[in-house]
């Protein structure tokens, strides 16, 4: 009678069964090969994916590609179960936090030899992204797109408070001063949103303060480092001074929506959210490079890659498709859709022009200062606990330093279990 617990176990088994039925089509009788390509963003990128496949099948008539969409929330659970059952899609989207685990456990096909053989120029992609998908000296993915973080601001609120718009010369002190002037409790307007989100918010300031999240050898947590803690304290000050809505308020009301409805004057967010800010009616938003911290400028860069499943039945065709996904042509299709910054060199211009009303160039200009999204082999082993810990640190009455140091111990324990 412990229904739900066991139902969950059954559900897992069912997912495995279903995934087993639905993926990895074999060769048809007429010699046509069918590949499955899995992705998780239908709303922003579905159209571009379909167009890319159309182009690919036009030049490769003997290969058919089936798109398999899974919402991001279930993507990894499903992929993991399918891979455990030996039936993952032939080609699929991969991200930084997962690449280490998937590559080290042999779920992905190394493509270094193919790259050398077909003379694919990896120099066309940002180096930090190519490195992200290189594990133990082997290349596992071709970068698909990338994103950096920028300082979004509400022009109307800046005008009303008579504060000059942010620009590339801004530092932390400028943000502090502006937040004070922009906060208007009477109207429910806050200077800035200090939400406990890693990629968009506190990773950036940790790097700007000269701190780190994971050491380069992936053995040590950076959360007991004074510089890292300084990067966190930057946000805690806004919360303590009520220049930002409290974490509780931003749990109830998504800060993205608060920014869109004019409740936040400044907000750190990624290039991937540009379409919704550019298109929100009545919102005059623009974006500037992230202000410099005590140790200079920095922004988190992260990007997806396309990878090939190690047990694919059609490695040759899958590689052909992967190569096409990494081509200038496929990247151009992505650029024109405006959803993501294509990884391919020289195509960022096309993306910047896709939304002329916002200064998207700010995201590209930050590339020289970009720091890779911090990952270890099993990022998922500590990232949920990290979100919980920093959320707690940012809550009322909590001391950032104490909570961060406590979490460092937890994270070190998780890192020590990675092989």
């Amino acid at each position: 009678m412990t229904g739900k617990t066991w139902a969950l176990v059954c559900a897992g088994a069912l997912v495995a069964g279903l995934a087993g039925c639905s993926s990895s089509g074999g060769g048809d009788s007429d010699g046509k090969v069918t590949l499955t390509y899995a992705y998780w963003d239908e709303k922003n990128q579905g159209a571009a994916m379909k167009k890319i496949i159309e182009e690919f099948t036009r030049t490769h008539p003997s290969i058919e590609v089936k798109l398999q969409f899974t919402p991001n929330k279930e993507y990894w659970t499903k992929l993991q179960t399918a891979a455990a059952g030996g039936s993952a899609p032939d080609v699929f989207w991969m991200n930084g936090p997962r690449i280490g685990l998937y590559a080290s456990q042999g779920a992905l096909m190394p493509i270094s030899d193919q790259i050398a053989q077909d003379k694919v120029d990896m120099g066309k992609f940002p180096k930090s992204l190519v490195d992200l998908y290189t594990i133990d000296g082997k290349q596992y993915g071709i970068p698909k797109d990338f994103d950096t973080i920028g300082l979004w601001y509400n022009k109307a609120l800046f005008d009303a408070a008579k504060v000059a718009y942010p620009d590339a010369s801004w530092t932390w002190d400028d943000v502090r001063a502006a937040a004070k002037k922009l906060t208007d409790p009477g109207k429910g307007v806050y200077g800035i949103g200090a939400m406990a989100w890693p990629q968009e918010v506190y990773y950036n300031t940790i790097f700007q303060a000269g701190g780190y999240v994971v050491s380069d050898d992936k053995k040590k947590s950076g959360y007991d480092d004074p510089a890292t803690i300084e990067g966190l304290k930057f946000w805690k000050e806004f919360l303590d001074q009520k220049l930002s809505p409290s974490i509780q308020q931003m749990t109830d009301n998504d800060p993205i929506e608060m920014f869109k409805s004019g409740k936040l004057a400044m907000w750190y967010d990624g290039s991937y959210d540009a379409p919704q800010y550019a298109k929100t009616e009545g919102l005059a938003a623009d974006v500037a490079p992230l202000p410099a911290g005590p140790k200079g400028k920095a922004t988190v860069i992260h990007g997806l890659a396309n990878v090939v499943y190690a047990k694919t039945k059609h490695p040759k065709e899958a590689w052909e498709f992967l190569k096409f996904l990494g081509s200038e042509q496929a990247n151009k299709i992505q650029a024109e859709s405006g959803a993501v910054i294509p990884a391919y060199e020289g195509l960022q211009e096309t993306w910047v022009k896709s939304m002329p009303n916002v200064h998207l160039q700010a995201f590209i200009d930050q590339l020289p200062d970009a720091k890779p999204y911090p990952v270890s082999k099993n990022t998922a082993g500590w990232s949920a606990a990290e979100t919980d810990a920093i959320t707690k640190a940012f809550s009322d009455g909590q001391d950032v330093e104490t909570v961060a140091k406590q979490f460092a111990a937890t994270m070190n324990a998780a890192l020590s279990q990675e092989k």
Partner: protein
Amino acid sequence: MSTVERAAPARAAAHPATRRRLRDREWVWGYAMIAPLVLGLGVFYLWPVVQSVYYSFTEWTLFGDSSWVGLSNYEKLFTDAAYGKALRNTFLYGGLSLLGIPISIAVAALLNTKGLKLVSFYRTLYFLPVVTMPTAVAMIWTWLYNGDYGLINYALSLVGIEGTSWIANPSTALYALVLVGVWTQIGYNAVIFMAGLQSIPSHLYEAASIDGAGRVRQFFKVTLPLLSPSVFFVSVLSVINGLQMFDLVYLMFRKGNPAREDTQTVVSLFFSRAFEEGAKGYAAAMAVVLMLITLLLTVVQFRMQKRWVHYA
């Protein structure tokens, strides 16, 4: 009733051979009848239980290779602070959800009032949450609980009380969850209690009132004792359901909620460990311990029933 009872032995006595054949066939038919249920339970409940017990002694790599690790998963449970906290939350939730029982009895008694108009309308109203999708329930209550724009805080502001962010505030979140859980269970419990109330013979009340018992006394001396089997049934179910709380927690307390730590139940922690972090063996050990606890509590409840449950 009585004709059947008399007829069967009469015919069987007349033809002993028929009786034997009939018994043989009854044997087959009996099993055939319960087969769908037994098979279903076996495949979807018992077999996974056996498997989970086995898995709890193993550790898994992400892609399905497992190795025997003996008791180490169970040892880890003792040092996992999150598990301790989840156990505490789960017990608190399970215990508090028993509050739904007196509320449900009151609702059932009201719905059972003689001469009440629109009975089926009220019954539907109370039962609606039971058949509403948990996703919808969670969404509506998340809106109601919103600290800045929620209806609850608006209502409170009318009487001069300043509310809080009910499900983001660590000190109120669990109680907010209990309220929603109880709310969704009232309809189901009330139906059981209504059936229980209706099966109490009216002559007992007549006799009680002749003996001079008032309505309150009738309730405690007649209604409650005779309702006790239903109360027992509902409380066993409530405890089991309470210990397995998952859907509302998963839907209402997402990552990044400051009250997450104070609302994670064992099953929701099980889900993140098994399917998000990939520690399937360890998660299985958590589930096995929860099953043993549930079993123990249910056995205790069955033992205790002799003291207070009256079967008429």
